[in-house]
């Protein structure tokens, strides 16, 4: 199957500093990928590289037939890259509804569909971004990325700092998105066990390079791999 998102020998970073090195990836429609690794190995930089917020030193990124390596970040978003940043970056001067409306583009994910997905947001649609909880901000951040009707959804540690009950709720939504098919999802997550369970495929980064790229079950079931890749002791399965 023709890949929706393809990274071909990508080397990128901030200014002259290289963070991601010689990374290649190809993801087909509906494919879900977890990106794991210790702190500072380049997981978030990988996301920012795909969205066009870093300096690409070499390599090529394409979205379907379209080469997006040279495109500015707004053109990549319009082409179909949806990004949920680690910091959430909700516009606090705008209401929930306004946050969604400024990002909305025609497609399956309408504002009403987002409110169906996150009923909490629907009941607080007129509240400003600074009047909602951290969990609701995360839901809004995901909703804002979805109303752009992306082909690829990048999620950078969406569970970070959230209460277990909210994590459950967001995980439920992510499972719905995965089951709906068609959307490529890349999930960066510190909670390795949760990510391995969610995504059928995983890459593990170490100092900007992929040291594992394969089935999540394979990684989870291999104690030696888990230990060498993530520093976790013992297999999961």
């Amino acid at each position, binding site marked *: 199957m023709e890949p929706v998102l393809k990274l071909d020998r990508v080397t990128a970073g901030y200014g002259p500093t290289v963070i991601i090195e010689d990374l290649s990836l190809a993801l087909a429609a509906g494919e879900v990928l977890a990106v794991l690794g210790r702190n500072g190995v380049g997981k978030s930089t990988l996301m920012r590289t795909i*969205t066009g*917020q870093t300096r690409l030193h070499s390599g090529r990124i394409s979205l379907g037939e379209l080469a997006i390596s040279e495109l*500015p*970040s*707004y053109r990549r*978003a*319009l082409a179909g890259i949806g*990004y949920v*940043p680690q910091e959430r*970056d909700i*516009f*606090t*001067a*705008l*209401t929930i509804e*306004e946050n969604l*409306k*400024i*990002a909305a*583009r025609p497609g399956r994910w309408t504002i009403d569909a987002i409110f169906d997905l996150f009923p909490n947001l629907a009941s607080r649609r*007129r*509240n*400003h*971004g*600074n*009047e909602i909880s951290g969990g609701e901000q995360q839901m809004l951040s995901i909703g*804002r*990325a979805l109303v*752009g009707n992306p082909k690829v959804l990048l999620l950078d540690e969406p569970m970070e700092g959230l209460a277990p009950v909210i994590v459950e709720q967001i995980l439920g939504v992510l499972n719905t998105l995965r089951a709906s098919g068609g959307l490529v999802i890349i999930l960066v997550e510190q909670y390795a066990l949760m990510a391995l369970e969610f995504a059928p495929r995983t890459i593990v980064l170490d100092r900007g390079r992929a040291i594992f790229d394969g089935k999540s079950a394979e990684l989870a079931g291999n104690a030696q791999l888990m230990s060498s890749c993530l520093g976790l002791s013992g297999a999961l399965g």
Partner: protein
Amino acid sequence: MSAPSNSALARLRLPAALALPAWLKAVPWVAALATYFFAPQYAPLLTQIFIMILFAMSLDLLVGYTGIVSLGHAALFGTGAYLAGILCLRGLTDPLASALVAMAVAAAVGFAFGSLMLRTKGLAFLMLSVSSAMLLYEIANKATAITGGDDGLQGIAFSRVLGIWEFDFEGTIAFFYSLAILFLAFAFMQRLVNSPFGWSLRGIRENDLRMKAIGCQIYRRRLTAYTIAAALAGLAGALQAQCTGFVALNSLSFELSGAVLIMLIVGGSGRLYGPFFGVPIYMIAQDYLAKNDPTNWFLWQGVILLALVFFARGGLLGLAERGFLRGFGKGTE
């Protein structure tokens, strides 16, 4: 110029549950009309206040909503004023037609300047904004045959508004004419800032990187905002020429650019109603202090600004909002 972080500013806004009743929005308009009927001798001062409110409102679209701080906004006000004056002296005496032409030309000048200036940010933008006003000031100063140079444009006499109402010595027609134009401009601004375009400007002010990541072309939006602000500033300038019958070099000066920014800060930027408070207070204080303590006017202006910076961030409306929230015994933090 992108504001570094406006989250603190945003936190000052009233929570949705404490939104002010709609009738309160009518208060400034009713107050303006009431002042005229109870003290008609102040009509010329009120007219000047309306014009400056319109001018400050146009700057608010840049400073308060888009996060572009300009110190050369008088360039656009002066363009409108000179254009209306020059056109009048050359035969276009209809107030509405000349106001529309002044708006269009000011928008074109804003678009041209903005196309270059908005490629920069921060201090570079600030310097370019000052330079643009100085450039036009010097052109107006040198082109005496067209602009009257240091003496300004004199002998301007516009025809009747809508062919019915003639500008009178008491300033009654100028009062109602400028109030009507201000009302229309305010209605337009209100619609604009509460549209998806207006929300995107606030998004740019708050976090332009995030706006790019959701597909917004920042430069184009900022340039559009700058052009609209220029048109409104040009309209204010044209009103000034029409209501006073005179255009001076001061309409392009750095002092005017600074004064309108101070008026906006005093009232509270990014609030639509900020200029309705900041402009009258500044102008009445200026009028009072210029009469009673003329040598120290700038000293008092400095003291007022210092007090605002330290004790009333967000201007008078910000102060009122905080007081309102305390009165209700809840914060928004």
